């Protein structure tokens, strides 16, 4: 290990470490603009110059590009190096606008910082500056090319790291322009990272443009809960409004980056229709009245029908605190539930997936990056866990082989093999794979060769499109691959793993059955909207309508909120914080960011428009975290849990659910899965075998379909329309071409779709992505199969 001296301090670093990083390990931060740990050195800005006084190299050299070697003596403060850096700044500022007060980066700008640090304050060169014409890069990234200092970070991230090609470096020399061939929306779902990595105001965040300076916002470390990866983020709030989400570095989870769904999905918290005040039968009322009504209702139902007549529903997006409180409350009261999943099948699949993954060695994003063979089964990374696609790409860049078994036409920013298998065929392929190591070669050419030279394998597995037996098959298949293989599970929600661990037998479907049988008379819904993504809207509406009492605790303006008898608003993760367990079983905690309340919106002149109501606290601030509401309810019905605050919940949970809580935040839980009843599910017979009909597979896309981000107006401009994916041949036999508009009849409504075709889609399958249409808002029942008579041209 090389030993070197930096500013008189000796340090030993692993071979390959750059001098700039070695210095940082000592706490010496060498100024830099182009170097970025995830992107590596570019040697473009010349700002990291230091003096090498002795050792293998000598002179003023770039510390970002030189590897630490034995015997180096480095000075970061040598007058020669200091004056060199000073000149670099002066050159950079020659063309840079001197107008930080009107630049949105001002206050958190790396260039501003190093310029001030260098002492440069007077422009000596009197000539004109280089100027560019800006482009419109879409709704997320604001470009101001005059501020560019040519560090190449954006190009290196966008093309090399993320693998998208529509944005890049154009031109040469001082005219180099970072943009697209023509104005247009950036194609990458990771485009927001440009904002984070650009060290100047050349690329800034468009949605929060000119809203607040960095020192004016309330900021706190938080988590992204828009998928199961649990990326770490920093959230900024200003005037009671969430204004920006940025990536927060966590080397174990997301690294430096996040996806655009996570970055711009926050706006549900500012939604104009967000429930802000408790309401009884749609009438706003005071906090105490709503609680009193809820208590009275619960007591009445209990008196008349017993505690089992109260069903409790929550979901995969509830925080661990809420889940634990709810589980304890149900135990204490004897209520039915809590149900975290839609139906038995989903519950079993989630448990099974957790069990299979945990027993085979669970993998997270880091393991994916290090793998040399990646097999994707039943997952569309870009749609279901966007940042996973970037991790796969990093592995691929290092030479990993990537294959996918999924009926959807998956798109990834890399070259990979895909076989559009589904159902029986998929089962058969996995069986073959489980029997013989090279069994997958038939469907994925190149598999065997890749397998032979592989040392670390990751199988990415999701529960949405594969059925229970395929999931189990996958487990066998991975055991066959041996020790070097791990499973990377992709769940649907941010807290699915905890939900499957805490679930009893109840699911929403089983509660609904009991509602129909008249056994359940009241429903308590905690941060759950059974209407979201439902295929059985009609049935659902009928069950909800037949209830005597519906209590909803939520922060979304969801459909079930509109139908609540008693509505109690709850706090989002931004006001209440919370703990979540991500897909690899990592327990993570989010801090509250601000107090909340109805945002003070500005008008176009920049004037604030406070809501004209007068109260002691900020208007709309009554929301409490759902677990607080639950504790209060419990207390009032005489079933207090003896819990006061979060610390208490954690303490109790540590005793009661040790498998979830015996780690410090940031660590991985020790649950081993389990509780999967083998006999739970009888396989459904395949209705399309005999008929002309196509089976329907409902899927979601990156920016449409995820529950929270659905309510974020920031994502509206990039949401896709409803799409129907057909097998290419089948479609052309029917005279349908890519881009055609069709109607599909479902029950008594006709839903518009745009046709997509791909040879990967199995011929007996029709894949429907409701996009921004939200199919379930109108369709009473989404058919399991669809025939050609139900499809017509628009």
């Amino acid at each position, binding site marked *: 290990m090389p030993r070197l001296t930096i500013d008189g301090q000796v340090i030993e670093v692993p071979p390959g470490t750059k001098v700039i990083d070695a210095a940082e390990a000592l706490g010496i931060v060498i100024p830099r603009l182009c170097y970025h740990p995830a992107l590596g050195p570019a040697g473009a800005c010349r700002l990291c110059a230091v003096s090498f006084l002795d050792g293998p190299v000598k002179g003023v050299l770039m510390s970002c590009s030189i590897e630490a070697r034995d015997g180096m003596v480095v000075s970061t403060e040598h007058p020669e190096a200091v004056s060199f850096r000073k000149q670099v700044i002066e050159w950079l500022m020659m063309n840079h606008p001197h107008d930080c007060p009107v630049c949105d980066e001002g206050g958190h700008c790396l260039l501003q910082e190093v310029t001030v640090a260098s002492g440069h304050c007077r422009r000596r060169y009197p*000539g*004109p*500056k*280089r*100027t*560019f*014409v800006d*482009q419109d890069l879409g709704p997320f990234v604001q470009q101001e090319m005059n501020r560019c200092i040519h560090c190449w970070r954006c190009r290196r991230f966008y093309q090399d790291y993320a693998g998208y*090609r*529509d*944005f*890049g*470096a*154009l*031109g*040469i020399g001082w*005219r180099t*322009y970072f*943009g*697209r*061939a*023509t104005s247009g929306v950036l194609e990458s779902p990771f485009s927001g990272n440009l904002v984070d990595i650009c060290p100047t105001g050349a690329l800034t965040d468009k949605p929060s443009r000119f809203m607040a300076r960095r020192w004016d916002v309330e900021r706190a470390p938080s988590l992204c809960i828009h998928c199961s990866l649990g990326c770490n983020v920093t959230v900024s709030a200003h005037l009671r409004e969430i204004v920006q989400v940025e990536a927060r570095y966590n080397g174990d989870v997301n690294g430096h980056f996040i996806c655009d769904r996570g970055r711009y999905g926050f706006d549900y918290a500012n939604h104009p229709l967000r429930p802000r005040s408790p309401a009884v039968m749609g009438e706003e009322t005071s906090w105490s009245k709503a609680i009193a009504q809820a208590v009275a209702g619960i007591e009445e139902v209990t008196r008349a029908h017993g505690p089992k007549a109260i069903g409790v529903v929550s979901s995969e997006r509830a925080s661990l605190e809420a889940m634990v409180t709810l589980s304890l409350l149900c135990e204490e009261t004897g209520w039915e539930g809590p149900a975290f999943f839609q139906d038995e099948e989903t519950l079993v699949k989630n448990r099974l997936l957790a069990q299979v993954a945990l027993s085979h060695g669970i993998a997270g994003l880091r393991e994916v990056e290090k793998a040399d063979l990646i097999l994707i089964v039943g997952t569309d990374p870009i749609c279901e866990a966007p940042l996973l696609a970037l991790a796969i790409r990093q592995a691929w860049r290092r030479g990993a082989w990537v294959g996918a078994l999924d009926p959807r036409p998956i798109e990834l920013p890399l070259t990979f093999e895909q076989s559009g298998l589904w159902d029986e065929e998929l089962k058969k392929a996995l069986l073959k794979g489980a029997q013989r190591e090279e069994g997958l070669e038939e469907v994925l050419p190149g598999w065997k060769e890749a397998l032979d030279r592989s040392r670390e394998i990751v199988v990415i597995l999701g529960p949405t499109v594969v059925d229970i037996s395929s999931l189990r098959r996958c487990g066998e298949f991975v055991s066959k691959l041996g020790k070097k293989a791990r499973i990377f599970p992709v769940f649907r929600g941010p807290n699915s793993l905890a939900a499957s661990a805490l679930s009893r037998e109840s699911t929403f479907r089983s509660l609904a059955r009991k509602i129909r049988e008249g056994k359940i008379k009241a429903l308590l819904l905690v941060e759950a909207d059974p209407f979201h993504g439902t295929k059985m809207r009609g049935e659902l509406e009928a069950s909800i309508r037949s209830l005597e009492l519906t209590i909803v605790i939520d922060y979304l303006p969801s459909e079930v909120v509109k139908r609540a008898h008693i509505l109690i608003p709850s706090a989002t993760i931004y006001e209440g914080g919370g703990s979540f367990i991500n897909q690899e079983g990592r327990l993570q905690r989010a801090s509250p960011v601000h107090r909340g309340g109805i945002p003070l919106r500005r008008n176009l002149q920049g004037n604030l428009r406070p809501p004209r109501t007068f109260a002691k606290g900020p208007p709309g601030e009554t929301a409490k975290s759902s677990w607080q509401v639950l504790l209060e309810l419990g207390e009032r019905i005489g079933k207090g849990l003896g819990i006061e605050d979060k610390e208490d919940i954690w303490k109790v949970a540590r005793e009661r659910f040790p498998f979830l809580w015996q780690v410090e935040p940031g660590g991985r839980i020790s649950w081993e899965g389990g509780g999967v009843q083998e006999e739970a599910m009888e396989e459904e017979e395949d209705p399309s075998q005999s008929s002309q009909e196509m089976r329907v597979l409902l899927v979601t896309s990156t920016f449409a379909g995820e529950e929270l981000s659905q309510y974020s107006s920031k994502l509206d401009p990039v949401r896709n329309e409803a799409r129907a994916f057909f097998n290419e041949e089948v479609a052309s036999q029917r005279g349908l071409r890519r881009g055609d508009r069709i109607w599909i009849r479902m029950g008594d409504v006709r839903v518009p779709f745009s046709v997509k075709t791909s040879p990967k889609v199995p011929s007996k399958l029709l894949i429907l992505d409701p996009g921004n249409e939200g199919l379930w808002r109108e369709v009473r029942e989404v058919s399991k199969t669809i025939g050609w008579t139900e499809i017509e041209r628009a």
Partner: protein
Amino acid sequence: MSAVGQERMIEVVDRIPEEELAKLDPIIAKYAHRPGYLIPALKEAQEIFGYLPQEVQTRIAHGLNVSPSYVYGVVSFYAFFTMVPRGRHTIRICLGTACYVKGAPEILAKIEQELCIGVGGTTPDRRFTLVEVRCLGACGLAPVMMVGEDTHGNLEPGTVMDILDQYK
């Protein structure tokens, strides 16, 4: 210093009729789906059109299966490629050190004034395009300019236009 100013990355050029664009098809057929042959393809395209407008670039991008931004990046990188029509003769006036001290600025001023164009400009009759270069390697003859492939040295403001008159 006339090169400073609004650096337009996207030139709005006249639309090219479809039948003109079709001339690209043999080139595209030759290099279809071979992104590595982008530069020869662009070179041949420039031989046909004399320059590489946006539509030509887009068509080549689709033909070779690369993104339009990538093609644009290459075109804007190499001085050899141009996105605006050039004149029949390119005047390369040397502003290198030797030429500069021997009076190149006066020569340049004279040409600019007579042709009514600045550096980088093209005369409306597409006869001349004027560009500046740094040192043509003929400092002994300073001040020097090239017109097309011909080098002319020892220029004087009074006679430089006579030289240009030879090029029609």
